[in-house]
């Protein structure tokens, strides 16, 4: 693999007595979509928050494009695009204005034509560009988020449960967008429960349970593995009572 864009080195995070993430080692290269599977509380969102610098690690380091997130907060954020489960926009601004505003805060001044171009590329219908975002569906809001990632020329994408709540067609469309961003060279880390979409989109899958990366599957193995069985196996193993 060429130099990883997203890298976790022994990344550890505790919340009081709870070990939320236990020495996670992870490296995601350009063009790779890494799906992090795991039940609620497994540490998926914590991992994303550590890459975003919203949390400080108790051990190890999160690196973006080789830069330590804690030491180079601004630089690493410039290289990232983040899409939470619910992409929130300002309802009284139009989609184009929302994109312009977020881009401006990222230090990018977009002209009207550029905004329209990025929104087009993200798949947002033309008629919706100048409509107030308060009228948008979740899928449309996500497209504005993707347009921002395009505008930023983000080297890495952090997606937190991106397909949750999307109808199947919107989900397929979104997966296609993610795949295209990866094909253009972005490294994608996607925390998800959506096993069905993972097979279409991901190039590598990691199963995270109780803060520990239990298994990684990639390439051919990914297509031939029953992900559901694998995932449930790890979860049940973690839930099983410890016997002497």
């Amino acid at each position, binding site marked *: 693999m060429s130099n990883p864009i997203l890298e976790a080195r022994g990344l550890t995070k505790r919340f009081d007595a709870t070990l939320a993430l236990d020495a996670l080692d992870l490296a995601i290269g350009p063009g790779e979509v890494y799906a992090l599977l795991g039940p609620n509380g497994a540490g998926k969102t914590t991992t994303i928050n550590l890459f975003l610098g919203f949390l400080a690690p108790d051990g190890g380091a999160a690196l973006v494009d080789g830069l330590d997130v804690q030491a180079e907060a601004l630089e690493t954020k410039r290289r990232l695009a983040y899409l939470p489960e619910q992409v929130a926009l300002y309802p009284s601004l139009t989609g184009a204005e929302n994109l312009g505003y977020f881009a*401006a805060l990222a230090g990018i001044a977009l002209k009207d034509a550029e905004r329209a171009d990025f929104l087009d590329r993200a798949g947002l219908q033309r008629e919706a560009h100048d409509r107030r975002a308060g009228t948008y569906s979740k899928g449309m809001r996500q497209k504005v988020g993707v347009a921002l990632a395009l505008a930023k020329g983000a080297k890495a994408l952090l997606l937190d449960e991106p397909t949750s709540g999307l109808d199947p067609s919107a989900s397929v469309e979104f997966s296609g967008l993610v795949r295209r961003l990866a094909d253009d060279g972005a490294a994608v880390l996607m925390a998800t429960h959506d096993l069905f979409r993972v097979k279409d989109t991901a190039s590598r899958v990691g199963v995270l349970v109780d803060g520990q990366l239990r298994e990684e599957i990639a390439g051919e193995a990914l297509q031939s593995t029953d992900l559901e069985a694998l995932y449930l196996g790890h979860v049940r193993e973690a839930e099983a009572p410890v016997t002497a």
Partner: protein
Amino acid sequence: MTLAIAKKEAAETLRDGRFWWTTAIVLILLIGALATGWVHTERLTAQHTEAAEAERGVWTGQEEKNPHSAAHFGTYAFKPVTPLLAVDRGLTAYTGVALFMEGHAIQDARYRPAEDASAAARLGELTAAAVLQWLVPLLIVLLTFGAFAGERERGTLRPLLSLGVSRQALAAGKALGAAAPLALVLIPAAILGAAAMALFAPPETAAWSLPRVALLALVYLAYFAVFVGVSLLVSALARSPRSALLILLGFWFANGFIAPRLAADVSERVHPGLTAEAFAEGKAEVDAMSWEDRTVRVTERLLAEEGVSTLDSISVNMPAVRLYEGEQEETEMYRALFERLADGFEGQSRVAQAGGVIAPLLAVAPLSTALTGTDYRHHRHFAEAAETYRYGYVQTLNQNLIDHAAPGGSWDREYVVGEEVWAGIPPFDYEAPSAGWALGGHGLALAFLGLWLVGLVLAVPAAVTRMPLDPR
């Protein structure tokens, strides 16, 4: 980045129909209050000018009489009306509009508008100051309570911060974004007011008012900044936009309605001042001064000074000297009494200003009345100038009597003077104090207003740094 945030905040506010409704109401009330204040000021100015001219005519038109009778005839000093009365009427309803000046006594101001007011006046007057002190802060609260709490609830806070926006820049942008729509409303109102003053007020009054208007604008700007700061602080720390709004409405109510009443009660307890009863007793004490004792004292001194044994042999008129010295003595006692009364009021005012540490209105209200010249200190300044004039002209008349009345121990009923003497006494010409003097007595209020600003400049970024990113 800060500008981009401010621009977007302002755009969102300006698109909100509720902003236009609430702003229109505030603006209409502000312009209405300024207009009625202006009409009131104009009418008062005309009445004062007319009354002062008539009074001067009455004085110079007096028939021939003994100079001391003229001192008793007396004259009025009319308090000057400033154009800034249109902004804040302060204590003018209670301090009176004119002082009667005569021999032997210092009078309190007369013709207090409050005496003629209807019961409805107790509910308070609609003045520009009331709009600026109560309604504009309410508008600020309504505009800014959701600054951070709303972002958090909407879910935009995380994406914003993931872009590398510093929390300080976010706080500054929010503050600017709240200020811009307000400025859009308040600046035209201020320009309108200043233009009206420049166009219609007499040039000397306008020149006096200009630095005061500038300082007044700064004081209110600081007050609004305090409210923006408090709103941002609460919004950053509150659990939800709803709880931010409730906390801020509580603060607004306590600041505007509870604190002033509490401050008045506390200041009276801490600094009781001179009661009406004690003041009346003090006046009665002066009035009870024995003229017989004074006659004996003056007679003995004059006889000793001139080395004669009877009043028929002295070179001056003893009753005239007695009047001159009596005036000195009574004035001294009256001045001490009024000083105690005034010190009491000012002491209470200082205690009330100290409340500015918990309620910014208690710091801003005295600064507003000081700069508009409607506080008790300005009244005292005027009353003391009028008293200096009164004493001067009464003693001029008494001196005239000493210089010209027939020597001896009897009252010279034959000696009278006329227009020449009346006209020789210049009219009362009061020079109102400068803006610097006006603020000089309110160091405590200025300090507390500054303290609020500095405290919030430190507290808001600190709160924004620690604020949670997700709804709790």
